């Protein structure tokens, strides 16, 4: 069979040279055009818009917000990674001033009464007329009333995958999920109340936490079908129109928000880039209006001199600590723990990682000035003393040191943790303790390393939280989850103090107890070795304005988060 192949047929068609030339020319032109497109579109550094001081807050415009962490979902009751977005799409009972530790009644609750002297009963009077956004495909316009609060509390308190349930257990008086619904009362449409079995001071802070979002009763009821992780069904200032947890999240203004004229913005777009260098570069190039990157002091200084950027800094609650397993030798030996503790070069961490702007952390992080031990005391106590550390090691029978592994979770993007770990290892080398850093994938780390206590040492940032109860709970026999701590540390005296402070509504007395507890912890040199804390930096383009400075306490008249954010580019 004499079938001709493609080339033969093509040849028979006698492709003229002109055609070939034409093709070549087209290709060349295309290439040139592409080159022009590629280079002509360079935008980096070109966009330098400075702030116009005459502008006043006003509606319109939208902002792009960089985000370094993927969003696992925006269901406030279940998802921890999307809480900043949940706060924008759901209403809450009230706001919170972390510094002054006071409630701001700027949301659903008009007032909170605690009639009994023990502060166990909470009675909320709710705002009337708060309704679900009309953008919702279902349940639009539903009232957010006391029943909504009740149903939301039940959902938050009883879903098995919901986070920290110490507070709902205190309301119910037990950990039985069936006990919670009868404990929550709705005397009338706009009054919501409950009475706890025992006083629990952190409760007031807890309810302002973003995990306590309020949804209308029918949303709670239909939650499994509505896929709340990906869709917003709320009465908050914004409504989510596009959700891609690894890519981007688009919010638009809720036209029916209960505060007239708010939110100012027409929309917020979160762009998720888990790689810090790209995230920062994109912000510098003007692609993001609000930076999501983890910034260093150097970047802060850099942006300070740039009129097109606004910067701010605040003490960081981020709290890197080393946990030691007291069930295992040699960490059961207090002299070894002390040696490890005083061998740490905390000043070097501050110099190298925090660019000189850091403070020592005691059992409670230093930014919680009201509760933390004074710096002078901590700096004196944790003063580096390698000779004494060596002596202690020798006394404990470890003159030649020992070698061990320190497990760390693998957290791509949070680079400075690894730097701190390297400095720790370097510090301990001097007392002949050879520590190898062993990185473990986050899931495996939590599931098979941390929770079961399967480690000798582990370096892990405790989650930031601005209430003294939580950092102390790590030292309690029951741990921070209420199911036992991971380090095997038990001290009945300390347990008693920690429980006492959570019942003490008198601030002065509580301070005393907490100081006493911290001093007890210091002397134990464990089970956690606290290190240092630095500053957190933020940056926005100059034309974007937050109502109050990053890290500062919101003023008394602050409106809910996000409603007063505005841009000059409207």
């Amino acid at each position, binding site marked *: 069979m004499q079938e001709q192949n493609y*080339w033969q047929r093509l040849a028979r068609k006698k492709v003229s040279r002109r055609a070939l030339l034409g093709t070549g020319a087209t290709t060349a032109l295309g290439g040139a055009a592409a080159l022009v497109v590629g280079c002509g*579109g360079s935008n980096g550094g070109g966009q330098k818009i400075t702030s116009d001081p005459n502008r006043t807050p006003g509606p319109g415009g939208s902002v*792009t917000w960089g985000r370094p962490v*993927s969003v696992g979902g925006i269901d406030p009751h279940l998802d921890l990674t999307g809480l900043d977005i949940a706060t924008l799409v759901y209403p809450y009972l009230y706001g919170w001033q972390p510094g002054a530790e006071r409630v701001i009644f700027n949301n659903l609750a008009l007032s909170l009464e605690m009639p009994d002297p023990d502060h166990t009963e909470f009675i909320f009077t709710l705002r009337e007329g708060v309704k679900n956004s009309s953008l919702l495909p279902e349940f639009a316009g539903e009232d957010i009333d006391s029943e909504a609060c009740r149903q939301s509390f039940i959902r938050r308190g009883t879903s098995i995958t919901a986070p920290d349930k110490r507070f709902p257990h205190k309301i119910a008086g037990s950990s039985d999920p069936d006990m919670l619904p009868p404990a929550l009362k709705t005397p009338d449409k706009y009054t919501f109340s409950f009475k706890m079995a025992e006083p629990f001071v952190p409760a007031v802070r807890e309810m302002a936490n973003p995990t306590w979002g309020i949804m209308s009763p029918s949303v709670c009821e239909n939650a499994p079908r509505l896929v709340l992780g*990906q869709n917003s069904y709320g009465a908050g200032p914004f409504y989510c129109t596009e959700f891609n947890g690894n890519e981007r999240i688009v919010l638009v203004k809720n036209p029916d928000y209960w505060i007239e004229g708010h939110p100012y913005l027409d929309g917020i777009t979160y762009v998720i880039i888990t790689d810090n260098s790209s995230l920062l570069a*994109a912000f510098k190039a003007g692609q993001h209006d609000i930076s999501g990157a983890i910034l260093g002091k150097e970047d802060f200084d850099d942006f300070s001199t740039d009129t097109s950027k606004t910067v701010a800094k605040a003490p960081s609650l981020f709290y890197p600590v080393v946990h030691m397993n007291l069930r295992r030798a040699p960490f059961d030996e207090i002299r070894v723990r002390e040696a490890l503790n005083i061998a740490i070069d905390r000043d070097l961490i501050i110099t190298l990682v925090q660019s000189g702007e850091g403070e020592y952390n005691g059992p409670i992080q230093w930014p919680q000035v009201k509760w933390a031990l004074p710096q002078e005391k901590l700096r004196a106590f944790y003063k580096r003393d390698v000779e004494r550390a060596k002596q202690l090691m020798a006394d404990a029978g470890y003159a030649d040191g020992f070698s061990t592994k320190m497990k760390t979770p693998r957290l791509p993007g949070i680079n400075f943790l690894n730097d701190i770990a390297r400095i720790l290892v370097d510090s301990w080398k001097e007392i002949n303790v050879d520590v190898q850093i062993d990185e473990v994938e986050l*899931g495996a780390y939590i*599931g098979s390393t941390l929770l079961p206590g399967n480690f000798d040492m582990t370096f892990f940032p405790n989650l930031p939280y601005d209430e003294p109860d939580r950092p102390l709970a790590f030292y309690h026999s029951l741990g921070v989850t209420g199911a036992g701590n991971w380090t095997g540390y038990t001290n009945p005296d300390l347990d008693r103090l920690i429980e006492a402070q959570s019942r003490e509504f008198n601030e002065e007395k509580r301070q005393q107890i907490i100081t006493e507890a911290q001093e007890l912890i210091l002397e134990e040199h464990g089970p956690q070795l606290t290190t240092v804390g630095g500053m957190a930096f933020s940056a926005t383009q100059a034309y974007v304005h937050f109502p109050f400075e990053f890290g500062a306490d919101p003023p008394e008249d602050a409106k809910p988060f996000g409603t007063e954010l505005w841009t000059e580019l409207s």
Partner: protein
Amino acid sequence: MRNYMFRRLLLIIPIMILVSFMTHLTFRLIPGSPAHLICQFQCTDEVIAAIEAQHGLDENFFRQYGEWLGVLPDDDVGSTFTYTSPGDYPDYFREFARPYAEFLGLSSDDKPNQFHGVMQAEFGESVIIRDEAVTDRLQNTLPVTLELMILSLLFAVVLGIPAGVLSAIRPGTPLDWIVRLTSVAWLSVPNFYVAILVITFGQAWFGWLPPNFGTGHAVGFFEDPLQNLETYFFPSLVLSLGIAAVIMRLTRSSMLEVMRNDYVRTAWSKGLRERTVVWRHALKNAMIPVLTIIGLQVGGLIGGSVLIESVFALNGMGNYLLTSVITRDLLVVQSLVLIFAVVFVLINLIVDVSYAWLDPRIRYG
């Protein structure tokens, strides 16, 4: 030819079954449960069991495999598959075939389908991003990677073939040396290194970044062609360098070989002009192996896209796979790996078939 294609297609089926089975097996060998990733500090046995049930991880190995493939219904209690009488048999197949029938416009009943698997183009759900279906993400990520790959191939051809031809018809000249050195350099310098350098020095020296860098969402070609091409220009150029080098070298060696052939000598002796000899006689025949190598480079492109998308912050399949590996979203990794394998096998098939079509020696061999 038809026979050859038929044989080749038939061979795909056992390979695909094996590939899917091996993928499933590998990812089920992992001890521990992805449930830990979700429940984090609230992990009790009860919580883990609930999450596993939600993702169907509590069932036996073969059942999970069947459900993932979409040949077993998803519903685990009293499903259609646990039939007792032969009468249920047709139901099972009708259900299984329903998505296809619907696609062809044949289905009339509106009972919800119980088969949700790879065969129905449903690739499961993420464990990390709650309730996120892989299929939904593919709608965003697949076009990015496809465009990146197509543009890279285009760049590689535009850069590689002319350079290779020039170098072959002027062997030993400075031009030839430049081409050869360029090609070996492009081949050796890892593309992610080039990508970092482009961004680093662009940023450090000129305050320049690739256009639309970090917008997190590439504009589709049909929405705004100019912006779209801007976005992809540099990533695909960097990605294309390695392949361009391979094409350049192969074009060169293939041309050198062809130019030695009798028919080329005949063409020369006929007094034809160089352009005619090169373009009409030599290049056409030299292109056959080059076309094959272009097809084979697609596997490399898929791998390269993981790195390039990561550096250029593009949200494509490669970045999706990488993120899922890093967050250990293994149910997603499993499906993505299978998708990559299927695409790769299909492209290889196309290459083989087109090669046979181009080269009669194989077709009749």
